[in-house]
Structures are given as structure tokens and as C-alpha cells.
């Protein structure tokens, strides 16, 4: 009880601090210098219509690289943690044991059919969101998440489906590597690490524009999709029957 009270007191004190922030806050009337620069220069410098995408992929590309790495890390660690439980057990015996377990209850007709119908659509939508990231709301992260949701659906419909772990990991690593290499290309060919001007900026507003942004976004999308998928796969294995 005392602890709850103490926590309440602390949280309230934090609240007081936050309220001070709130009181001191006044919304900007004008864009500040940084934002103003983005608003006016993005189009000419990067050729991207979606300023947020330009910031994410180019201006703050290093953040994004870190972000992707976060997911990579999370996926890797999830894999590490969950594989650690097998300890000395060899993988074959584990899968044998898995086979001997009673089968899952059958998946409903609705889900099975729905999956077959929806997965291609989901994948296509994901791809769309990814490649149009520099023009419209969306991009690699969003698209990647959509891709992974397709994977989720697949897993739901057939939990025992063996999806190529290896493939996922290759995709994941390859796209990550490509991201880094593109960044380095920027360093070598253009103005700096992750500069998108290594490719021609193209016509403003068209699909093939904004230099390397769409390319990078494709890799990000693949990577995010692969990472989420691998996390999902790993977590799915933890389900107890």
C-alpha cells in the first residue's frame, strides 16, 4: 500500500513536471528554421514529394539505418533467446518431437480460403506502399509491416507450415547490407553518407524520381518485412499446445 502511494506520489510529481512543460509550451506560428528548410528545399534537393520520407531516408537517414538495425537486433535477439531454450538438443530431434505432437485443430474454411485470397493482395498492397513512399504517405516501414501481416495470416492458417527461415534471414541481411552499401555509395558518389543523389532525381512527383529514396525504401521494406516475419515465426514457436 505504501508502495502504491509512493508510486502515485512519484507519478504525480512527474505529472507536475509535465504540466510545467505543457504550460511552457506554445505552438509555433511559423515553421522553425529546420522545418522551413525542409519545406522549401526538399523538392529541389531530393526530388521527393513526401517530405517526411525525404527526412527519414535522406536527411535523417542515419536514424533510419539505426532504426532498421533496431529491428534487426530485435529479430536476432528474439531468435537467440528462443533458440537458446533447446540447449544441447539437436534441431532434427526437436522437429521430430514437434511432429509427434497432436496436430493443431483444423483451420476453419473461412480462414483457409481467405488466406489464399488475401495474401497475394496484401503482398501487392505492401509493395505498392513501399514503392510510393516518396510520393504518398507510406514507405518502407509501413509497407514492410503490411508484408509481415501477410506472413501472419499464413501462420494463422497453417501453423505448421515451414517457411524458409533461411530465405527470410538472407533477405533480411541482404537488404540491410544493400542499405549500408547505398549509403556508402552516397559517400563516394554524392554529397555524403546516404545522399540520395547517387541516382538521377527524375521528374518531381513521378514514380521513378527522388533518386535513391525508392530504392532504399524497397530494401527497408524488404528488411522490415523479413524482420517482422522472422520475429513472428520465432514467437509462433513458443506457442504451447
Amino acid at each position, binding site marked *: 500500500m505504501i508502495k502504491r502511494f509512493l508510486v502515485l506520489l512519484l507519478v504525480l*510529481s512527474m505529472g507536475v513536471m509535465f504540466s510545467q512543460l505543457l504550460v511552457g*509550451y506554445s505552438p509555433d506560428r511559423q515553421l522553425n528554421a529546420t522545418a522551413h528548410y525542409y519545406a522549401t528545399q526538399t523538392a529541389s*534537393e531530393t526530388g521527393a514529394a513526401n517530405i517526411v520520407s525525404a527526412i527519414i531516408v535522406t536527411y535523417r537517414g542515419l536514424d533510419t539505418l539505426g532504426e532498421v538495425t533496431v529491428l534487426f*537486433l*530485435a529479430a536476432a535477439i528474439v531468435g537467440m533467446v528462443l533458440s537458446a531454450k533447446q540447449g544441447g538438443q539437436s534441431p532434427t530431434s526437436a522437429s521430430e518431437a514437434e511432429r509427434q505432437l497432436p496436430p493443431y485443430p483444423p483451420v476453419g474454411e473461412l480462414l483457409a480460403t481467405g488466406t489464399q485470397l488475401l495474401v497475394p493482395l496484401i503482398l501487392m498492397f505492401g509493395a505498392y506502399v513501399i514503392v510510393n513512399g516518396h510520393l504518398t504517405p507510406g514507405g518502407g516501414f509501413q509497407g514492410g509491416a503490411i508484408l509481415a501481416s501477410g506472413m501472419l495470416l499464413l501462420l494463422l492458417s497453417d501453423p505448421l507450415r515451414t517457411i524458409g527461415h533461411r530465405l527470410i534471414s538472407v533477405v533480411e541481411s541482404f537488404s540491410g547490407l544493400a542499405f549500408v552499401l547505398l549509403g556508402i555509395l552516397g559517400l563516394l558518389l554524392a554529397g555524403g553518407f*546516404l545522399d540520395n543523389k547517387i541516382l538521377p532525381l527524375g521528374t518531381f512527383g513521378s514514380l521513378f524520381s527522388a533518386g535513391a529514396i525508392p530504392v532504399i525504401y524497397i530494401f527497408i521494406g524488404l528488411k522490415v518485412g523479413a524482420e517482422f516475419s522472422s520475429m513472428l515465426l520465432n514467437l509462433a514457436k513458443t506457442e504451447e499446445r
Partner: protein
Amino acid sequence: MVSALSFIALPLGTAFTLGLLPQGMQRVNYLLTLLALALLSLIAASWLLAFAAGEIATQQIFTAGTTPPFSINLQIGMAEAAGLLLLNLTGLLSVIYLRDTLHQQGARAMAVLLIFIMALSGIVLTRDLFNLFVFIELTTIATGGLILLSHDKRALGAGFKYLVATQIISITLLIGTIFLYHDSGTLNIDGMAAGGLITGESLALFLVLIALILELKPFPANGWALDIYESAHPAFSAILSAAAATAALFAVDRLLLVGSNSWLPLATAVGVVSFVGANLLALVQRNDRRILGYSSIAQMGLLLVVVGQRDILGESYLFIAGGILLAHAIAKAGLFWLSGIIVARDLSDWRALQRNPLYIFAFATFIAMLVGLPPFPGFYAKWDLVHLLAAHDRIALLLALLFASLLEALFLFRWFGYVIKGEANPEGIICARNKLGVIAAATVAAWGVAYLWGEMALQGNLLYSIPLLAALAFLLLEWLAVPYKNVLAISVLLGWFVVNYADYNPLQLIFAVIILVGGPLILLSSFYARGRRIGFYPATMLMFAGMAQLIVAKSSFDFFAAWEILTIGSYYLILRGKASEPHAISYIIFSLGGAFLMLTGFALAAAGDLNFLLSNLSEVAPAVAPWVFLLLAIGFMTKTAAIGVHIWLPGAHAEAESDVSPMLSGILLKAGLFGLMVLMLEMGRQSLYGVDLTHVMLWIGALSALLGNLMAAFQEDAKRLLAYSSIAQLGYALFGLALMNHLGWLLALMFVINHFIYKSMLFLSVGGVAKRTGTRLMYRMGGLITLMPLSFIAVLIGIIAVSGVPPLSGFGGRWIFYNAIMTAEYRLPLIIIFLAGPIAFLYLFRLIHTIFLGQLKDEHRQLREAPFWMILPQMIFVACLMVFALVPGLALKRVDHYLLQYFPEGGLSWDGLTITSHFGYWSPISIMVIVGVIFMTLFAWLLFVNRRAQKVKQFNIVFAAERPFRPETTHFAWNFFAPYRKALGFLTEPLVTRFWDAIGEALHSLAELLRRFYNGNGQTYSVHLLAFVVITFLLARGVS
């Protein structure tokens, strides 16, 4: 120059590549990882070299083809390059160390490790606030993964606690970041600092800062961190302690730029609390890794203080921060790595290191480095830090830091003591070649940075000092047998004396003779030792090196460095004794405590001058002069073991080896006297609040003499008796100095010489006897005169000399003493000195009687005389004593003359055989001749009338109507002065011991109580964390 971006791109690329490789190629994966880290270390090294050579200036690295603040930029300068080198090297070494674990865990673990190092490098490099956040989160998640490298099941819980805590930190950080962005319109840290829009009052800035500070795991909001240190794989703990903390420190340092340094006091306050608190709690730890965790936190606290004080540190900032940081990083990583080869987790399990002296050497190196002993960088850094703090009147902070350093030294040296002493478990250590290689690399790095910091230090490189090098060279000669090393040691000391003979002034010469000629004399007795005697010679030579440097030191830095060196050497020497561990620890603590007071004193005196000359002590501003005097005097008196700070001495001297005790007593104690002489010559009389400090010293000297003698009289242990006697003898010397007149000083010097000769001799004799009888308890001996006649003669001559009975040299001391006090204007302490005088007879008689006279014990009937090599120096000392008794002018005449320049009044005149003072006269040779003639005449007469005396057996006596048959019941020895104890025993109540014990006890109880605070619940830790934020905020607001 390879772009600094490679620190991010290369490890990331490698990490991703690892995923591409097919499974089962662990060797390739591992090699790739190694290669990447090695390459990064090389790149970092090349940057650092370029900066060091001044070829390039600090560089900005832009990304995205745009300039900041619109895109993220990195910056690399000298400090960053050094940081990167540290990070990547630590990573590289840890990967080598982790070879087996990584092979087992596979490519994922290697990728995580690489990304962890990358993220740390990113923290060091980036100048963008949000980017900093991203890198911090990367380290957090990577930490979450790497904790699992441990085989310890408890690591899982620790990891979760860590994740919970970091959630709160990241919330705070993000909120602060976004509001800082809103207020300043930029995310660029330099932009925020330069824009001036962010003021010191900014709450957002506070949130960001406190979040970054929390990344440093400040005490007490750090329970989760301790659990990780304790349970994670040691190699990871090494990275966490050495590299991650370093990176976080860079971040804090950078953020403090914002708000025009107004949050520096916050950093200082949090730092000092961490430094004191963590060191205090470490006192009661027994788990090695947890104690290292505490120590890491403490060191981070210290560094935070340095960062917080950077406004006054000026150009030395990087030198100081870098010195402490590197010392911490290398030592801590080294210790964590060491802990990985130790099987069990208790501190005493480290005894397994005894298996190989090289392990011990590595361990000692790391401990010394952590404590900040010379010649390691922490020493230079601490020196500069303390001086600058003192110059800016931040004395309270200074004292808090020194106090905490003392606590740190306490638990580290206690640990060292456990390791050196006691039975080792041979199974307690696992040796793998890769791990040993890593530890060796850390050791080499430790000495490397020691050299480097010496090169950069204003005061000159300590590693260029020939005596120190000679001492260290003995480390390389450890494989030789004792006789060779002993010959070498003796010739080195004598050689150094011959080379420098001409440069000593008479005062220095006296000390030089004692150290460099007296030392070899005592070393003669070391020939009796067999085998290799690992550890003895380096320690001995270190002590002598320190002493030799001390007496010629010109600047306060040289003096202090020499002081520390001799302290270390003597500490190891003391530690070598059989049951000496508790005494060694109390010795080192008192010594370091005294040294810290000295350091403060020097710093106050220097007023910011980092290379202060001792001769300038006379020009210290009058306002601080008495304080300087007081601090220095107390510092020196810890070494002379003046009453109050004497409790380390008896045990240390008693438990030391037979040939070590005389060195300690005869030579080491003189260091303090020399210091006092320098101090008093330069500063003269000082008074504080109207009290003349030399009068206080008179009292201390007198009380030391009285209580030292009294306690000596009640000892049963022969060496303890001599040890207490040393306290008393140095009390006399102190008294002489404090008289501040010509004869007083001559008296002190007379005691210096006399005490060296007779105490060395007595310790050697008693040591030889103890060696033969196997005990130091006097009541268990008796009647040894016929079996060990030469030892007896040495003791006889010794006690006559000590007691001051004519015709031996002790009388000279007494005679000068009386002449000196004739002119003393302050007479009360004299009464105590007078009371002390005759008490010497008590313990002296007891010493000779209970050992050599009385009843011989049955078990001792077959004893032989002490070994030749122990007797030889004793006989030489006897000869010296006789010569000095006959012609004291040999040594004193020049000094007497030399002292005239300081004390023009009251010199002695040395015409012919007679020495004349203003008050009296004394003719040593006449006395000797007269006494000799009378004695011989009477002896001849007795021989004439009693020429056929019949030798009778031991029990041919009768008492209490019986003829005794057991020596035990007939030897009156135990509690020899029982009636005296009844009368004056109350004076020997161990009040001082109790006082210090109580302080120690209180500190330990406090630590024991406080650590309950870490109740192991992750949630509570989060509450701590939140409370820390809130309380810090309230305090900060309250103050500003």
C-alpha cells in the same frame, strides 16, 4: 584518413553479412567479426595518431549531402578518436575472449555484439540529439541480447530489470528531446548550444540530461546495473563497464554544452554522490563481479565530477578525464576478464591466481591503476584535478572525492590482500590461451597508457626515473635465485649511492646513507632465504626507489610520487608476512589517507601551479599556510606512526618477515621524518587560531614517546614490543623537530641514525630468534643466551644503546635532548617526555631477560645460533654502534654545521674529544675509556678472587622450598609488569584503536544497511529511478 563513418558502416555491413553466410560457418563468421573489429581499431588508432601528431584538426562529417542542422552530422576530434579506439579495442579483445561462447551462440550473437560496438561508436560520434537517442536505444537492445551470453540463469531476470529501467529512461529522453527541439528549432546539439535559446532553467534540457546521466548508472538509482554486472558474462561486463560507460560519458559531456554549462553542478553533485555511495557500499561486498560493478559506478561518478568541473579544469580537462577514464576502462575490463577465468565468485576465490606470478602481476597492475597509484594515468589525473579544485576553493568537493578514494582503496586492497594470502584452490582457475592473451593485452595496455600519460604530464614521466625502472626491472629478474638477485639489489643500491653521493647536502646525505647503505646492510640478511622468493625484490626495490627519490625531490609532484611509490613497495613487503593481511590493509589505508591529506596540502599550497616547487612552500599565502602545514604534517605523521595514527605499525612490523621488519622500522619510518624536516625548514612555525602548531607537535611527539613506551612494556610478542618502541623513538624525534631549535633538530637526526642502527639490529636478532624458536612470544622462550650468544650480544648492545645508558650512542641522543630542551620556551610536554624516559628500561629489560635469560625451555635445547647471514649484519651494526658512540661527530658534525644556516643559534662546538654546547659538555671517548677501565679492573679483580667458579646446572636453584624441575613454571615472564599495569595500565587502553575501529565499523554497518535498498525487485529499481529523477529535479530547482 578513412572516413569516420566507417565506424558505423563497417560493423553494420559485417553484421548484415554474417546473416548472409550459410549456417555452420561459425569459424568464418568469427573471423569476419574479428577482422571488422581489428580494422576498426586500426582506423581509430590512425585517427588518434593523426590528431596526436597535430596533422589534422577536429573534423565534421556530414551525411545526406546537406549541412547540419538539417541532416545528421558526426564529429571526430582527439577525444572521440581515443574513445573510439577504446571502444573498438575493448570489443576486439572481448570477442577474442568470448571465442567459445560466440562459436556456440552463432552468427546472431556476433552480429549483436558488432552492432553494440557500432552503436557505442555512434554515441561517441553523433552531434544530433535524436540520433543519439537512436544509438542509445540500440545499445539498450543489444545489451538485452548480450546479457544472455552468460551461463548464469539469473542473468535473465537481470536483463528484464534492465529493460524496464531503460524504458523509463527512454521516455524521459524522448520527451526532453522533442521539447528541446521545439524550443530551439533544431536537433543539432551544437546548434542548441550556440543558439542560446535553451536556458539553464529549461526543464526539457533537464530531462534529457538526467536521462543521459541515468545511462551512467548513478548511485543509488542503479540496482539493475549491478545485477547485470553480477550475472552477465564477464567479457560483456567488461564492455559494459569500459566501453558503454565511456560512450555515455561522451554523451553527457556533449549535452552539458547546451544551456551554457548551467547544469555542471548537477553533474558534479550526482557524480560525487555516486562516487562516495558506490564505494561505501562496495565495502561490504563479497561477490567479485558485483564489487567490480560498484567500482564501475563509482568511477563513473568520479568522471561525472570531472565533467561537472570542466569549467575550472581548462586545458587539463581532457588530460584529467582521459586519464581517469582510461585507467578505469583498462583496469575494469582487465579485472572482469580476470574474473572470467576464476571459477567461484567469492573475493577469496581469486586466490587461485597465486598459481602464476604473472596473474598476480596483472591483478596488481589493475588494482594499482584503479586506485590511481603512480605511474598510472589516474595518478597524474588525480594530481591535476586536486590541484585545480584546490585552486578554485572547492575544498569540500575535494575532500569528498579523497574520502571516497580512500574507501575505494580500502576494498580494493583488502581484496588484494585476500588474493595474496591464504590457501589457493588449485582447481579454482581455468586457463584458456585466448583469455590469457586478452588479459595480457590489457596489462600491456595499462603500462602503455602509464607511459603515455607520463609523456603528456607537465611534471615529467615517472617511468623515466631510474630507481623506479630499476625496481621494475626486478620483475623481469624474478626467475633468478635469491643469491643472485640479492647481490644485484645490494649493488644497485650501493651503486646509486656512489653515483649520487656528491649531490646530496648533509641532511640528505644522512638519509641517503641510511637508505642506500643501510638498506644493503639489512639486505645481507636476505641471503639466508632459499628459492626465488617471488615478489620480495620488486617490492623492496620499489620501496627503496621511492625513498631514494623522496630525499632528492624538488617539486611537490616528485615528492608525492616518490611517497606513493615507497608506500606501494612497503605495502607489498608488509603483505608478505604470515598473518599480516589485516595489518597491511590498515597500513595502506593510513598511508593513503595520509597521502591524500598531503595531496590536499600541496594542492592548497600550489594554488593552481601544477608543478609546484617544494622550495616555494615558504611563500605560501599566510591565509592558507597553517592549513597546508597542518595537512602535510598529519600526512607525514601517519608514516612516522605518531600516536593517533599509529595503529597500523605494531602489527605491520610484527608480522613482517625477519629481514623486512628492520627495513620497515629502520628505514621506512624515516620517510615521514624527512618530510617533516622539509616541511618545517620551508614553512617554519605556523599557528592556527592562535595555537602554535609546533607546540601541538611537541605534545604529539611527547605522547607518542610515552604511550609507545608504555605499550611496549606490556607486549608479550617480541617484535610487537620493538614496534611500539619504534613509535616511541619516533615520538622523540618528532619532539626534537618540533622544538624548532638547532639542538632539537640535531637530536632528531641523532635519533634517525641511532634508531636505524639499533632498531634494525634488534629486529634482526629477534627475527633470528623467532626463526629458530618458531614463536615470537617471549614467555615461550628463555635462557637462550648460551645457545645464541651472538644474538644475545647484539640485543645487549642494542638495549644499552636504546636506553641511553652511557657509554653507548643512545646517551648522545639523551645529552643533546637535555641541551635542546634547555632553550625550549614551551615546557609542559617535557613532563611527559620525562615520564616516558625510564619506561624504556621496562620493555628493554623484558626483551633481553625473557628471551635470553631465565630458564631454557626443554623444546629449545637443541637450537642453534641464528643463520650466519642474519648474524653478520647484526655484528656490523654492533660495530657501527660502537663507532658512532665513540665519534658521533663523524655523522653529526657536518649536519650541525649545515643546520647553522637555518638555526644560527645554539650549535655545538667540536674541539678535540669533547663536544661542548652552551650548557654542558660531553666527551664520548673519555666516557668509553673510563667506563671500560673501571669495568675491566673490577672484572679482573673478580676473576682474581673467584677464578674457580663452578658452572652449575639450570635448576640448581631453590625457591619456595623446592628445587624446580620445569622451566615453564620457573620462568617469570608472562605479564611481566603486572603491578605496573595495575598502576598505569589505564593509559594503554586502546582508545585510538577503538576509535578507528568504531569508524570502520560504522562505515561497514552503514554500507550493510544501505545496500538493503537494492532489494532485487526490478520494479523497485524503477521506482528508485523515477524517484531519482524527481528528487534531483526538486533539489536542482531548490538550489537554483
